Each structure stands twice: as structure tokens, then as C-alpha cells.
């Protein structure tokens, strides 16, 4: 705790990391909308024939129309959100910095060939370039305003007019630099700038979607929760971008009829790995509800409804799980076993990989099904919940025994 708090605190105050995290998470609803398109496709694939299949197939062009402008253009929206978040952290007013970030992003990513825009870098492959564009643009704005490098108007000029003139210098500066980078990359690197970035980041991008990386993420998440800190809120600063990019790539691949590659998506983390809340605590919650110890049963009853929707803070703080020696082993290490099972079953093809990103806060199994359109994923979720209950059980019994002794002592 002594070491974790200052790190979490520093990370929270680091403007760029927070802007990336908050901005990228803000664009998740756009992938959720894009996911509806893949769900139509998935239902058609599941059915294979019949009137519903015929109807879906005949109208598939219309039903999946939006995916080209949501998931496949994810980087555009993420760039805007990240730039907007960072500019707010710098107290820069208005939308100018965020819109300038879009200008920079398009210059870098939307390669023009034979008079046509190439949109292939506007989706997940452009995400990292989008982050660079957003941070870079807002930094330039910030520097310009700090050093007062802008065109000043006389006092009597209306503030709106002043603002648009003030935005001119950073806008021009950003545009010049972006044009220079885009063309340098094309002439010297012989590739478009986003491709260059993807080549540089390739080891990280492939490395994050592996079992060891996933286990490290889960371990840190659970450990932070054990110390009472919101695990995903802190660790997602590192993995959210990757997981969201993987998800968008899966959706695009599925829509295009290509094999789906990634396992570690944003939806998978919340819908399967943290189903009913970090630590897969539904079983523990039910054990507590039925407990003879009043302190445990009262917390169990308060927590059960939020738990069903993936919110287990009442349980974590009420039991309490935090700093509870009985809970350390099942809460921190149980989910690692569950994560391994999920990764292996998906990697072996026993359970379908995520092809959509469902909305958050759904009851257990529902988001897994919407995410994979594979009924086996629902079975997997319940197997995990039962297994995790088995992990909790002996430790729960020890904890309950101690609680009962305390309660009896109080009665005397």
C-alpha cells in the first residue's frame, strides 16, 4: 500500500496518460454501435438457412452499412476524444484544439491516391497515430497559449472573434508540421506514417495479446483491488488502447469474412474476465447471503443486485475483501486460473473469440454471448463462476468461523 498509493496517485495526475485512457474509453460506445452490425452477420451465420437468414442476407449491405463509419473509423473519433480530454485538462477552451487534432490526424493517416482517400488507416491501425496526433496537437496549442504566441486583437473585439484568431497560429503550426511528417515518412520511409508507427510498435502490439501479458494485467488489477484501489481504472491506462484496437480489428475481420485473431478485447476483460465484478465474486456473494454470520449476510444481501450487473464495490468494501488475509489467495490468484482457462479455450477454438463489443454492466453470460455469439461462451462463464466459488469456499468458511466467534463474543 505504501508503494502502490504514490504510483497510483502519480499516474492519476499524469495528464497525457489519463487523456489517452479517458479518450479511448469514451470511443467505446462507437464500437458497440459497430458491433450491432456484426451481430446481424453473426445471427445469419448461426442460422445458415430459413426465412430470417434469407431476409438478413438480402439486406446485409444495409444492416452492416454503419460498421464502415463506426468501427472502421474508430481512430478518427478516438483522436477527437483524446484531444478534447487533454485540452480540458490544460483548461484550453472550445473545440478548436480537438478539431485541429482531426486535421493533423487526417493529414497523417488519410493517404490520398489517384484523387481518392484511402480509409484503411482510419480504423484500429490508425489508433496509435491518432493518439500521437491528439497529444502532439494539444501540446502545441498549450505551448502557444503559455508563451502567448497568438494574434491579439484590441479589447473592443468580441471574444468569439478573438478566440478564432487566437487559434490560427497553433492551427497553422500544427498543419505545417503534420504535412512535413506525412511527406517525410512517404519519401524517406517509403510508407505512410501510420504504417511506420505500426511497424515500430509491432512487438508491443503482438505482445499484449498473449497469455503472459494478460496474466500480468489480471494480477496487477486484482492486487490493486486487494489494497482497495480500483484495479481496472489504474491498469487500463496501459492496456485499454491495445484491447480496444484488438476488438475493432476482430469486428472488422469478422465483417470482412476473415478469421478473427485476437482474444484480449475490452469486452472480454469486463464481460468474461471480470464477470460480476473483479474477482468473479458472484459465488462468494451467494455464500455470504446464506451465512449465519450477520455481518456477512447483511453485506451479501446489499451487494447481490449490483453484483449481477457487474458492480461489486459494495462486496469488496463491505466484506471487506480489501486487506482481508482470508481473501488474498482466492481473490488475487483465482482469477489468474480463470484467465488461463479463457485464453486456452479460445486459443484452441473450443469457444469463439470476441467478434463484437457488448454494452457494459450486463448480467453474467449475456455479454459473453453478445460478444462471441457462441453459446459455449455462456457455459464458460458459468464454469468460471462455479470454479471461482470453489476457490472462495474454504477461505470463506474460515472467515465465517472467525466472524461467528466475534459475534458470539459481542453477545456475551
Amino acid at each position, binding site marked *: 500500500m505504501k508503494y502502490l*498509493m504514490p504510483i*497510483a*496517485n502519480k*499516474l*492519476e*495526475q499524469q495528464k497525457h496518460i489519463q487523456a489517452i*485512457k*479517458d479518450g479511448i*474509453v*469514451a470511443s467505446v460506445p462507437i464500437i458497440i454501435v459497430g458491433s450491432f452490425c456484426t451481430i446481424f452477420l453473426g445471427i445469419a451465420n448461426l442460422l445458415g438457412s430459413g426465412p430470417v437468414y434469407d431476409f438478413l442476407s438480402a439486406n446485409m449491405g444495409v444492416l452492416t452499412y454503419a460498421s464502415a463509419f463506426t468501427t472502421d473509423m474508430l481512430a478518427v473519433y478516438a483522436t477527437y476524444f483524446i484531444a478534447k*480530454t487533454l485540452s*480540458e*485538462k490544460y483548461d484550453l477552451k472550445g473545440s478548436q484544439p480537438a478539431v485541429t487534432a482531426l486535421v493533423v490526424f487526417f493529414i497523417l493517416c488519410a493517404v490520398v491516391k489517384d484523387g481518392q482517400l484511402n480509409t484503411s488507416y482510419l480504423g484500429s491501425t490508425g489508433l496509435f497515430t491518432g493518439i500521437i496526433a491528439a497529444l502532439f496537437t494539444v501540446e502545441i496549442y498549450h505551448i502557444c497559449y503559455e508563451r502567448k504566441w497568438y494574434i491579439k486583437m484590441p479589447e473592443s473585439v468580441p471574444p468569439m472573434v478573438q478566440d478564432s484568431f487566437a487559434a490560427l497560429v497553433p492551427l497553422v503550426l500544427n498543419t505545417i508540421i503534420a504535412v512535413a511528417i506525412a511527406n517525410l515518412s512517404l519519401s524517406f520511409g517509403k510508407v505512410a506514417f501510420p504504417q511506420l508507427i505500426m511497424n515500430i510498435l509491432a512487438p508491443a502490439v503482438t505482445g499484449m495479446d498473449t497469455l503472459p501479458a494478460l496474466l500480468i494485467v489480471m494480477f496487477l488489477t486484482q492486487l490493486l*483491488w486487494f489494497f*482497495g*484501489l*480500483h484495479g*481496472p*481504472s*489504474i491498469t487500463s491506462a496501459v492496456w485499454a488502447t491495445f484491447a480496444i484496437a484488438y476488438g475493432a480489428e476482430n469486428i472488422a475481420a469478422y465483417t470482412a469474412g476473415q478469421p478473427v485473431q485476437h482474444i484480449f478485447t475490452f469486452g472480454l476483460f469486463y464481460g468474461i474476465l471480470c464477470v460480476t465484478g473483479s474477482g468473479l465474486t458472484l459465488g462468494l456473494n451467494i455464500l455470504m447471503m446464506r451465512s449465519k454470520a450477520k455481518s456477512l449476510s*447483511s*453485506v451479501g444481501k*446489499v*451487494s447481490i443486485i*449490483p453484483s449481477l450487473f457487474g*458492480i461489486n*464495490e*459494495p*462486496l*469488496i*468494501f*463491505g*466484506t*471487506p475483501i*480489501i486487506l482481508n488475509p482470508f481473501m488474498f489467495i482466492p481473490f488475487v490468484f483465482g482469477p489468474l486460473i480463470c484467465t488461463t482457462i479463457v485464453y486456452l479455450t479460445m486459443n484452441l477454438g473450443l469457444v469463439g473469440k470476441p467478434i463484437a463489443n457488448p454494452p*457494459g*454492466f450486463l448480467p453474467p453470460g449475456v455479454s459473453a454471448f453478445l460478444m462471441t455469439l457462441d453459446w459455449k461462451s455462456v457455459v464458460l462463464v458459468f464454469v468460471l463462476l462455479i470454479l471461482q466459488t470453489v476457490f472462495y469456499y474454504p477461505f470463506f468458511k474460515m472467515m465465517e468461523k472467525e466472524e461467528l466467534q466475534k459475534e458470539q463474543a459481542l453477545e456475551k
Partner: protein
Amino acid sequence: MKILLCCNAGMSSSILVKKIRDVAEKTGEDIEVSAVANASIKNEVGKWDVCLVGPQLVFAVDSIHQQLNIPVASIEPRAYAMADGAAAIEMAKKLLG
């Protein structure tokens, strides 16, 4: 008194919002309360008297305080878990002195 509650997604703290309103209704106190996600805290500048943070975001208290410039503290874990509205109101009053 205007109390802002903040947690990671504005979800778990929204449980407490209802409980605070229930208590305020009983005691007849004039209390305005709402829950937001930490990510959108910037939109709340100047709107509230005091901010209570979910204990899971205790590491964000400093950052939230810098942005809102009002008294900010994290809620006692047990009170948060049991959604104890009365304890939360008590705490908000104490913070305001």
C-alpha cells in the same frame, strides 16, 4: 448543500445517491446530490460544495481536488459498501466545517 459523488464509472456511487436523497427527504434537509465518473469531473467545476469519492478512487482525491477546488475526501469503505446515506451526509458536513 450540494454533494457530488464520484467513482470510476459513476455506477457504484449512484447506489449511494438514492440513499442520500432518502435520508434528506426524511430529515427535510435541502440536499442536492449526483454521481459522476472520474473521467468527466472537469464538467463539474463550480457546481458543487463538496465532493465525496468512492474509496476505490482514494488515489484520485488529490487530482479531483485540484480540478474542483472544493473539499474532497474518500468515503469510509464500510459506509460506502452499505450505501449509508446518513454517514455520507455527516461526512460532507464535517468536510465543510
